[in-house]
């Protein structure tokens, strides 16, 4: 009653199927570009949109220069991909300028700060230091929002999603557009609500 070939025949059938598929696929031409891209390039493009959909309070952006400064730590993974995607891109009348940081004391002048998941050690101190200051803080560690960050990236099924901490943005007087809020996976009031006022 044992059926030793039942299993093999299935694998044989799979092989035949595979060969057919390969034959068919060999004559097809690519239809359009693969929608796959390097994670930090896409994150850079997201940050570009964030810059468009966030309003800084009057005087927060340098009136002397025509740039929005995006600060990233020098040694972070993905820094180059992010920088090459976003450097020089125009947001209204201003161009995004990527400013590389090598130590925490250089944070003045940042309008946007991106902290990668490798920065969880520095993160707590940085986020605390920037509380109430109009710097859009974008990060990706799991506790980024609870520590006072504003927008946190996460991956869902290989696609980038983000969460927003509205309380942290409020207490830094950054206005996040409703369009961004609608696209966020979750919106929390964050832990700054009670403390900031």
């Amino acid at each position, binding site marked *: *009653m*044992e*059926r030793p070939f*039942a*299993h093999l025949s*299935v*694998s044989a059938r*799979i092989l035949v199927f*595979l060969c057919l*598929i*390969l034959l068919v*696929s060999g004559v*097809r031409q*690519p*239809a*359009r*570009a*693969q929608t*796959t891209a*390097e*994670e*930090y*390039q*896409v994150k850079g*493009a*997201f940050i*570009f*949109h964030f810059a468009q959909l966030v309003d800084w309070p009057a005087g927060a952006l340098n009136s002397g220069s025509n740039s929005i400064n995006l600060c990233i730590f020098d040694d972070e993974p*993905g820094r180059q991909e992010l920088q090459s*995607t*976003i450097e020089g*891109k125009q947001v209204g009348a201003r161009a995004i300028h990527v400013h590389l940081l090598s130590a925490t004391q250089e944070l003045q002048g940042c309008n946007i700060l991106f902290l990668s*998941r490798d920065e*969880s*050690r520095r*993160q*707590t101190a940085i986020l*605390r230091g920037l509380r109430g200051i109009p710097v859009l803080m974008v990060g990706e*560690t*799991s506790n980024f929002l*609870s520590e*006072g960050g504003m927008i946190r990236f*996460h*991956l*869902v*099924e*290989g*696609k*980038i*999603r983000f969460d927003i901490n509205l309380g942290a943005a409020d207490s830094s007087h950054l206005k996040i557009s409703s369009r*961004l809020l*609608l*696209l*966020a996976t979750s*919106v*929390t*009031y964050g*832990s700054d*609500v*009670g403390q900031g006022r």
Partner: protein
Amino acid sequence: MLAFTGHPTGFAQATDLTQKSIEDLMNINVTSVSKKEQKTSETAAAVFVISGEDIRRTGALNIPDLLRQVPGLDVAQIDGSQWAISARGFNGQYSNKLLVLNDGRTVYNTVFAGVLWDSQNVPLESIERIEVIRGPGAAVWGSNAVNGVINIITKSAGETQGGSVDAGAGDAVTGPETIRYGGKARGLGAYRVYAEGFQAGSLPTHAGLDGQDDWRLVHGGFRTDKSLSAKDSLTTEGDVAQGDAGALATVPVSLQPPVTATVALRNRYWDWNLLTRWKRTISPRSETSLQIYFDRTTRGDTTYSIDPNTFDIDFQHHVAWGSRQDIVWGLGSRQSADGTHPNLRISFTPQKRTTNLFSIYAQDEITILPDRLRLSVGARLEHNGYTGFDLEPSARLAWSLNSKNMVWSAVSGAVRTPARSDRDIRLNYYALPGSIETGYLPILVSFFGNPSEKNERLTAFEAGYRNNWTSSFSLDTAVFYNRYCNLESVEPGATAVEMNPSPPHLLIPTFYGNGMYGETHGAELFANWKAASHWTLSPGYAFLSMHLHTIASSLDISSAAGVEGGKPDHQAQLRSSVSLPKNLQWNVSAYFVNRIPAQSVPAYTRLDTGLTWRAGQRISISAVGQNLFSDHHLEYSGPNSTVLPGLMRRSAYAKISWSF
């Protein structure tokens, strides 16, 4: 690891991503050499991912409670420390068709064939995500990934920097008390260390007795992640655990006089493991990984004693070939050795055994039509010490109809290989006094492994449909038809007089056989609906039907009905997650599980709820209530369980986390 979609450099360099809308960006598959694993859900398989955020929000105390939210998974707590967890049928205390891996280390017990859930105690806040695949995954993960695979993946040490202290207490548990600290050290890279302890109280049995199944566990461990160069990274992790859990079990306690009694057992175990993984990124299109681990368990009570250990080495190469093929191949070798001590109830012949498993596997994901049609074909060739060579093939097709609709289908083969208990065990089940019919010889009913036990085989046909109607609603469905052969049966043997162990007695033996076959089919549905910006509703439903038969030569009259009826045919769930102002998060989960006819387990609805309050940046407080609908209910009463089942009580606990 299941799916390797897209190509690391497949995207045209000239495209300016900032020209795309946010909605388009949200539809891009991201590739990142270090994060490939996160793309599992794009694959042509029934995948469900529990994220770290879900874990934090639900306030669950252990991994089995977290797994209840996976539609199609059958999770039943047996007593204070034991669970029966399976996908697509065949559930039991030792569910032998579900493979579980913890950071790449298989935790499937090679003696009892199954996962000992009381040993799977990763501190929950260290878990990055849990990926659950229903259906076979043997072509990638190897034998015993027959009905499902669960991958528990912990956060890298870089993501858990700083310290945290957690303390909890409730009417049924004390703890877990967890201390964790992460930092960076010269020469070591990022590291974290943790220690955790908890104690769970005993549950009542059906007869109203105290189950004496209280459970204590202390464990600790570490993980380091170090970048050796721009291309190389090294992860090392290890854990040590000591546990102690009670149970009531009906066992033969003596042959002279022959006595079978329900006794309180004390199961004690020591586990430790050490794993290291070296990853090298040769180029953005090519990456290798070499992983070595050692795992040892010593466990026993007065009825058994085992100490299996496993040494495993695995090499994997992932490479993009041309613009359309994404290949993963690898080889592995595993040595499982164990020692056992004979006992009146459970003994193994031979007492010690070492087996070797060799495997070689390859999977190629071919983009047939870019953005539209992907075919993934793969196979794993294994050689194990019991049954020799096995081929486990798989073909999966994923077809994106448009950006919102995707269908997939798959055909795969998988095997469940014999474990020590299938081949070598002797389990003295029942001892009773003789009568005039036996010539006053005492009677011993015993259960024997079968030295020629074969592989159980599955051929699975699956299909699924995923839909993202809008950004606030998504649907994931899967259907399957499984054909099994050589399923394990229990065959009666010839009654004989046995002299040893003394006194002389009448032996009524039964043996494992491979006399059962059958078909199962079912469907699993899951939806995620963002009803409002602060409110998410997640309904789920699973249906399962099993038809098992015995071959003509089999004399097994009970297994087919027992396995067929040993599952709920319908399971449904509804989960709600609400973000409230003042940093409050409120979760409610209701689970309906239909009756398990063969076990006389009535249908039940389980309601769990949790409220979490982030009180500032460093403190989080949560309160959880479980089983709120009824005073107590039974979840499992399977024939293969060695312990008396307990009743799940209504319970509550509170937990505070402080990070620094």
